[in-house]
């Protein structure tokens, strides 16, 4: 590790992996509830499990992004972090707030939680992904602002590389767009319209800048390719991301009471959204092929290539599958959406966080790379989790196609629950793939505890 303050990234990464495990466990509970409807009812109703599943996802990715930024920014700016103490303090604030929120979901009826956390003062709860109590939302803003202040001060006193600038634009964008979570108009159409300014402009907008910069950083390190080349690619990719993705928000404005011209704007621009993901895949493979050094951390390189491919498949291909308005008319809000959501989040965001962890964690633990044995285990976990996610996606897609046919497209449409019963076999198969994912994750965690001969000490 070049700068001692980079060490604050370590607790962030550990927390990220811990919360990721929680997310997967709740995913398995929900998967089982799809086929054994009364499983764990009434202790953990589906809506509670889902809230925990999606909120843990968001929180562990945020921990991952923050850890990545704390690791990368000192190295990129060639200066110590403005305040490592503040970074550690915010770690505990965020962890405690996150844990308290999850416990609140699990232990208290949601309406009671809303009542006692100030939802009557400002009604922000009960909207998908933004279920957090007002206090938690304010906590997220405070943590984000202190985090951004810390990093911006670091950037101002150090070298300003393109990677660090793009990362900071992405992170500032993340914080700014989150502010729309406080805007919840009574008018349902406007509520939905601006709800997407958090959700879409995060995952198909500014988060992709964070993704791009994390990937670019790791590629510079593991391939030794000239920074000028990598940063030029980065700009080209994020240009395509925002050029397609901002207007691409329109693919959510087809059926929610918004003007119908969005069917054209949304279809055309979001149909182009796979391009930056394809470019990212080409970028990763190109840089690795042109590598000028053999980095001992093979696992990190594998994650870098994997995130390119899987984000292209999950966000790009599976996104395109249902993004055109005439198709989306039938697929909107079915298991097709769930299939896309799973592979896109895993490929684009889970994998890039695991990539930076894979690269940085050995260095934070005082070695350039983990032992051969540990890396082999990590690469096994890569393949298990990735293949499991491919199958989860395929099974949900199959369920979704059948659901669309039975409930929406056929000349004799059947009710929702009748259609669900018909496709149950695919939910069972998905649950099986989910167990495979968990095994992969457990092996991933085990790889941190496997010793063996380590490579040369890190500089």
């Amino acid at each position, binding site marked *: 590790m070049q700068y001692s303050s980079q060490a604050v990234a370590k607790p962030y990464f550990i927390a990220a992996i811990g919360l990721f495990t929680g997310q997967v466990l709740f995913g398995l509970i929900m998967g089982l509830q*799809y086929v054994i*409807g009364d499983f764990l009812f009434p202790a953990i109703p*589906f809506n509670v499990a889902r809230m925990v599943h999606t909120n843990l996802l968001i929180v562990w990715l945020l921990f991952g992004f923050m850890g990545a930024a704390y690791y990368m920014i000192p190295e990129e700016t060639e200066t110590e972090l403005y305040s490592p103490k503040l970074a550690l303090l915010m770690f505990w604030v965020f962890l405690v707030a996150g844990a308290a929120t999850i416990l609140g979901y699990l232990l208290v009826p949601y309406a009671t939680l809303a009542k006692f956390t100030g939802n009557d003062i400002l009604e922000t709860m009960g909207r*998908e992904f933004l279920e957090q109590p007002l206090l938690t939302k304010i906590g997220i803003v405070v943590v984000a602002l202190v985090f951004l202040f810390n990093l911006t001060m670091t950037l101002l006193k150090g070298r300003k590389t393109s990677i660090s600038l793009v990362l900071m634009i992405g992170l500032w964008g993340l914080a700014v767009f989150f502010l729309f979570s406080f805007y919840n108009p009574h008018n349902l159409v406007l509520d939905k319209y601006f709800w997407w300014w958090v959700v879409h402009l995060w995952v198909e907008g500014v988060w992709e800048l964070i993704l791009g910069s994390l990937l670019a950083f790791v590629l510079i390190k593991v391939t030794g390719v000239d920074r000028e080349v990598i940063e030029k690619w980065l700009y080209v990719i994020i240009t395509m991301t925002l050029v397609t993705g901002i207007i691409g928000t329109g693919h959510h404005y087809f059926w929610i009471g918004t003007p119908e011209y969005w069917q054209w704007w949304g279809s055309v621009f979001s149909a182009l959204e796979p391009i930056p993901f394809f470019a990212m895949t080409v970028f990763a493979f190109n840089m690795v092929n042109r590598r000028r050094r053999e980095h001992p951390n093979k696992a990190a390189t594998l994650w870098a290539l994997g995130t390119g491919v899987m984000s292209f498949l999950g966000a790009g291909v599976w996104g395109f599958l249902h993004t055109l308005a005439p198709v989306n008319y039938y697929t909107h809000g079915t298991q097709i959406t769930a299939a896309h959501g799973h592979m896109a989040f895993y490929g684009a965001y889970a994998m890039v966080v695991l990539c930076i962890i894979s690269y940085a964690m050995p260095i934070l633990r005082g070695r350039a790379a983990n032992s051969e044995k540990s890396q082999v285990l990590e690469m096994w976990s890569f393949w298990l989790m990735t293949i499991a996610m491919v199958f989860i996606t395929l099974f949900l897609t199959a369920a979704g196609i059948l659901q669309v046919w039975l409930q*929406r497209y056929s000349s004799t449409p059947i009710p929702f629950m009748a259609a669900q019963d018909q496709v149950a076999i695919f939910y069972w198969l998905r649950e099986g793939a989910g167990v495979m994912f968990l095994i992969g994750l457990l092996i991933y965690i085990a790889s941190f505890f496997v010793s063996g001969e380590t490579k040369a000490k890190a500089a």
Partner: protein
Amino acid sequence: MSGTFTKSMARNIFYGGTVFFALLFLALTFDSMQAIPKRDNHANLTPSVIAGKKVWEVNNCIGCHTLMGEGAYFAPELGNVYKRRGPEFIKAWIQSQPTGTPGRRQMPNFHLTEQQLNDLVEFLKYSSEINTANWPPNIEG
């Protein structure tokens, strides 16, 4: 990407392209704000509907159901449930939960008051009258 295309050119295209499309998006949003009142059924946004939306939110209905296709995919679409089932069925259904049928997906009982039930039904009626460009394809949602 040969030597003639430099990093600073790429950077300028990034800033220029982003600003251009962000402004275009804002312009489209401005236009949408003018057009939405023709479709959004705001004339029926009564105090009861507003209270019903809050009942919808603080019981996390979106955690299982979709509303206009957005939400969770565990339970039926409710954007058009008012038209599919009617007000009395909706209230009776909510009150009779959970069914307790072994193996079947269970909906909790939220212990809603008569007032809350009425408000929620009003909210679902208002939602069902928003012009959604003919979505969902049929009454099953």
